[in-house]
């Protein structure tokens, strides 16, 4: 290409027949670029379908909740005009009764009174029955005054709180799930307040998740560092054997490993039996090591350890032994050389390992679910609960989005501190 470029003309270089060089170059490499694109296309499509779309859907679901307008289409429009004082006007009550009757009849998936009741129950616990019970009788109200008739069915229809909540959920988009995910709620006056301390769960668990993840990451680092050092410095034959021992758990099913820890740590388990047998502890004072935080920490450290060892190892492998020798020849003690010369060079590995382990730990689910017991639960277990058991997918999505945001924030901080190009994952 260079031979056709006009010499000595740095700007607007053209080929010999006058085509700008850049255009000519683009044309020449187009085929290659198309081929490259074709090669990555399957992966791109896979990422799009398996990653981008679900996450987009999750983010969307955490604020999109069309149940109000879906179940009560006409009411959702007229309630917007209510000023929030006293009770809505009679005309609004009439629309409400007719919408409820229609919803009860249609029974279309996602647009039933049950869906509405569930939705309102998120906002006002205990109000579910008000909707489901009233819905069964509401078709009997055929003429006005609708307000009195409805209140005749159930006194709770007199409560302003119900109507303010209905007004609020009559929009397709809502912040309530993010409020709920941060232990906040709307009170009777539509003000955002903290939930009753007895019902606050997400912030404490989120905090605990972060704290436990940090602790697990730290323990992993403490354990992995010397192991990686050995791996990187031992003769090949020995280190290969050690590497297999590190990777062996990797090739074993996660469930099997976690279950193995249950067998090890339960009160009638191997560790306790040995302690009792050797009379370190008495039969009565067997230690509770599983179904609590300790169990979660032990099992997760074990499971996440390879993710710390591998990046550390790959970095340490590239640090030749002569740096330490050089430091010692320059008069530094072993410890000083380690701290000033060896350790700083392993920082990319430490950074990669801690980031990897921390992010994995934050979102870990199976292990805490199996061995977490009462106080070893993490935020992912609550998310799974909402997706699988309570079916409050929107709240699960909001929690998932917050978790995602936390991970991204940590990634950003890391990028600032270490620089992502400096991370070495192996």
């Amino acid at each position: 290409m260079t031979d056709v470029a006009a010499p000595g003309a740095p700007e607007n270089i053209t080929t010999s027949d006058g085509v700008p060089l850049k255009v000519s170059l683009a044309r020449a490499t187009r085929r290659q670029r198309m081929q490259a694109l074709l090669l990555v296309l399957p992966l791109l499509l896979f990422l799009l379908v398996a990653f981008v779309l679900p996450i987009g859907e999750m983010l969307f679901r955490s604020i999109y909740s069309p149940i109000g307008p879906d179940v009560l289409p006409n009411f959702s429009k007229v309630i917007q005009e209510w000023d929030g004082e006293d009770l809505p006007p009679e005309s609004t009550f009439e629309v409400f009764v007719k919408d409820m009757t229609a919803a009860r009849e249609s029974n279309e998936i996602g647009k039933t009174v049950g869906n509405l009741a569930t939705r309102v129950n998120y906002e006002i616990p205990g109000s579910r029955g008000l909707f489901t019970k009233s819905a069964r009788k509401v078709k009997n109200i055929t003429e006005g005054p609708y307000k009195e008739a409805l209140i005749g069915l159930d006194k709770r229809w007199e409560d302003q709180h119900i109507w303010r909540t209905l007004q609020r959920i009559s929009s397709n988009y809502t912040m309530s799930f993010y409020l709920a995910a941060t232990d906040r709620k709307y009170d009777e006056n539509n003000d955002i307040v903290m939930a009753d301390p007895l019902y606050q769960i997400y912030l404490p668990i989120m905090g605990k998740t972060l704290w436990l993840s940090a602790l697990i990451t730290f323990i992993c680092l403490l354990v992995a560092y010397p192991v990686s050092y050995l791996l990187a410095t031992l003769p090949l034959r020995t280190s290969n054997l050690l590497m297999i021992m590190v990777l062996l758990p990797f090739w074993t099913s996660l469930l099997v490993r976690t279950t193995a820890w249950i067998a090890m740590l339960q009160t009638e388990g191997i560790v306790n039996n040995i302690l009792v047998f050797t009379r370190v502890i008495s039969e009565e004072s067997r230690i509770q090591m599983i179904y609590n935080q300790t169990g979660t920490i032990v099992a997760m450290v074990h499971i996440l350890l390879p993710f710390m060892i591998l990046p550390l190892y790959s970095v340490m492998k590239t640090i030749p032994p002569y740096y330490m020798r050089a430091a010692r020849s320059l008069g530094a003690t072993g410890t000083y050389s380690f701290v000033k010369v060896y350790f700083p060079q392993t920082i990319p590995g430490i950074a990669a390992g801690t980031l990897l382990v921390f992010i994995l730990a934050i979102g870990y689910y199976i292990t805490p679910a199996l061995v977490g017991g009462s106080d070893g639960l993490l935020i992912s277990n609550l998310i799974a609960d909402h997706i699988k058991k309570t079916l409050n997918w929107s709240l699960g999505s909001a929690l998932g989005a917050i978790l995602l945001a936390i991970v991204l924030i940590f990634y950003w901080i890391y990028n600032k501190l270490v620089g992502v190009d400096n991370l070495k994952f192996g």
Partner: protein
Amino acid sequence: MKKFLTTSLSVLALGAVSTAASAEGSLTAVSWGGAYTKSQVKAYHEPFTAKTGIKINSVDYSGGIAEVKAQVEAGNVSWDIVDVELSDAVRGCDEGIFEKIDASTLPAGADGKPAQEDFLPGTLHECAVANIVWSTIYAYDDTKIGDKKPTTMADFFDTKTWEGKRGLRKGPKPNLEFALIADGVAAADVYEELAKPESIDRAFAKLDTIKASAVWWEAGAQPPQLLADGEVLMTTAYNGRIFNAVAAENKPFVIVWDGQVWDIDLWAIPKGAPNMDKAMEFLKFSTETQQLANQAKYIAYGPARMSSAPLVGKYEDGKIDMGPQMPTAAANLANAVQNDFEWWADNQDALNERFNAWLAQ
């Protein structure tokens, strides 16, 4: 847009749930697995196949309506009939994911009583038909408990007299009921009492007294295992699971019926089930008087039809008389209450959060 997104998530949420072949002449019945599914296979599936030639494909699940909801919303239903708890049946019906079932089309009892009168009160629902009555009770290992045996719900909470771990279901239901009963509320009045907000505090305060000794279980198979392993001294459990451990595995477990909270399991048909007609045929067949009575031969859950009770005989080994093992036996009902699904439907979400917060403290 919304429809597309919903579909995409639902498809993904389904994950590994296989699309069972909806071939001609077969039916996919979903239930809770283990000894319970086995009893259904013996009492319902096998006679049904013998009679109609329709094969039944048995699938296990762990309860809840999440999977059904995902299938129905995705428009890709592979399950034909599902064994659900009452609260799930009600909620699924409210949300429109179960077919409506006209109770008047159900066969009359063996004694000729129409179905609506033959089924126990509250066991027929708009979208579901009950098959069994089951109960959450507590049990202990007779060889480890010592000379003094616990007899009341209060004894379960008495960790001074009976020092040791307690197995409890991880969730508010029915621990709140148990706590109030142990605290002196008559079983029959429990839900009346629970309607008062201060009673929730009272129940949690009672649970506080055994929190340090608690071992939490989630799947029904866990409590007998915990007892057998000596991990706990007493545990709450489903009565059928304890009975099977005693009858089939000769475990020295004893059930304490005082304060039991009983509930029903029902058949429900997901909206859009691929073999709707056959599912309905199976539902009617399996809830006939004789089939319900037969099931009691294999597991200690009571038949939902009154006409089945006199037909209940002995356990499959021919030795144990099944009558007294049923939650519905008169002796067992002395201090008992039926799970109030409506109260739970109203309060479940909030109480789950409070329970989790309490656990995490």
